[in-house]
């Protein structure tokens, strides 16, 4: 009898501990998601203007932003709606502009504990964006889904309402404010890649080469026809592939606390 009671009490205290950890992760997600949400407001506001130009209503713009959470993919989609393309063209354009999420999702799958249930995977897959991917891989150890839920709680509404406001209100934000807010995302990326580069010289070189290659490719007339999204995929596969061949990571580095 006694033994039984003790066991159940243990279970309850373990459950409480897990719950407290999840709440802590949720709060940290909200904290790290807040600057992302601010940047999103500005970016999706301009996305909303593109939706307005394509003839979408405020509700349609809101819905498109809420259901896709994609900037480049959204822009391309609105352009296609404006030109009256087919649904197949829409599927293809969406696939190309969002293909980088396939790589990001792959990388995040390695940050999840292998026994993470399917419903968590289905839920966090909803919002694998450049920014949430960035803060996810910056976490130490396994990625707790509740951390991402925290970030999603603030990021998704900001993204959706930003787009709705863009459709409804057009140019409320001054060009100066949009310009300043537009670098928030890049500041965030720097905060993620620079600290590991300071410690690991290979990462520092990889980051530097990525900067240079990205700059050169963007200036080459030959690549004019290739979209930014495709450029990101090509450069990522090439540079990360070469780095992996030349500097394979040890088992310890390559583990979940890698990035």
């Amino acid at each position, binding site marked *: 009898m006694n033994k039984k009671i003790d066991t159940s009490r243990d279970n309850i205290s373990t459950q409480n501990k897990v719950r407290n950890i999840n709440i802590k992760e949720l709060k940290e997600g909200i904290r790290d998601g807040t600057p992302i949400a601010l940047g999103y407001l500005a970016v999706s506001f301009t996305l909303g203007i593109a939706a307005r130009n394509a003839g979408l209503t405020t509700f349609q713009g809101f819905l*498109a932003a809420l259901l*896709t*959470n*994609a900037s480049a*993919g959204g822009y391309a*989609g609105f352009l296609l709606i404006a030109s009256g393309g087919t*649904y197949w063209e829409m*599927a293809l354009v*969406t*696939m190309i502009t*969002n293909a980088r*999420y396939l790589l*990001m*999702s*792959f*990388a995040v*799958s*390695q940050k*999840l504990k292998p026994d993470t249930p399917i419903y968590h*995977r289905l839920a966090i*897959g*909803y919002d*694998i964006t*450049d920014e949430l*991917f*960035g803060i996810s*891989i910056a976490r130490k150890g396994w990625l707790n889904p509740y951390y991402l839920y925290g970030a999603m709680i603030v990021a998704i509404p900001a993204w959706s309402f930003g787009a709705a406001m863009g459709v409804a209100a057009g140019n409320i934000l001054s060009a*100066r404010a949009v*310009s*300043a*807010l*537009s*670098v928030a995302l*890049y*500041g*965030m*990326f*720097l*905060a*993620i*890649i*620079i*600290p590991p*580069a*300071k410690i690991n010289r290979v*990462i520092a070189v*990889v980051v530097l080469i*990525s*900067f240079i290659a*990205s700059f050169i490719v963007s200036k080459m007339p030959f690549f004019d026809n290739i979209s*930014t999204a495709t*450029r*990101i995929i090509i450069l*990522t596969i090439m540079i*990360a592939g070469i780095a*992996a061949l030349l500097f*394979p*990571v040890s088992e310890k580095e*390559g583990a979940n606390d890698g*990035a």
Partner: protein
Amino acid sequence: MMEHNVYLYILVMAGVTYAIRVLPLTLIRNQVNNHFLRSFLYYVPYVTLAVMTFPAIIEATQTPIAGVIALVAGILLAWFGASLFQVSVSCCIVVFIIELMIL
């Protein structure tokens, strides 16, 4: 143009986008053991984020010089241990001040 329904367009966008995001997460349930693939995935985030940052940061601002200074400021702040939020907000403030001065 009339024969196309905007809601169907949005549905196609949403379905394809979600599939791309969720397939690797749900299909790859275990740690990848291939050494090359592990190393590759280890470097992917750094390359992707670096490529997305530059030169986009100097094209996002009204004047390229504001973007360049924000880039340098962001790198320095991150190097000396500023948090994600601090680096991000500082970059915005730098751009705002620079453009206030020169525009």
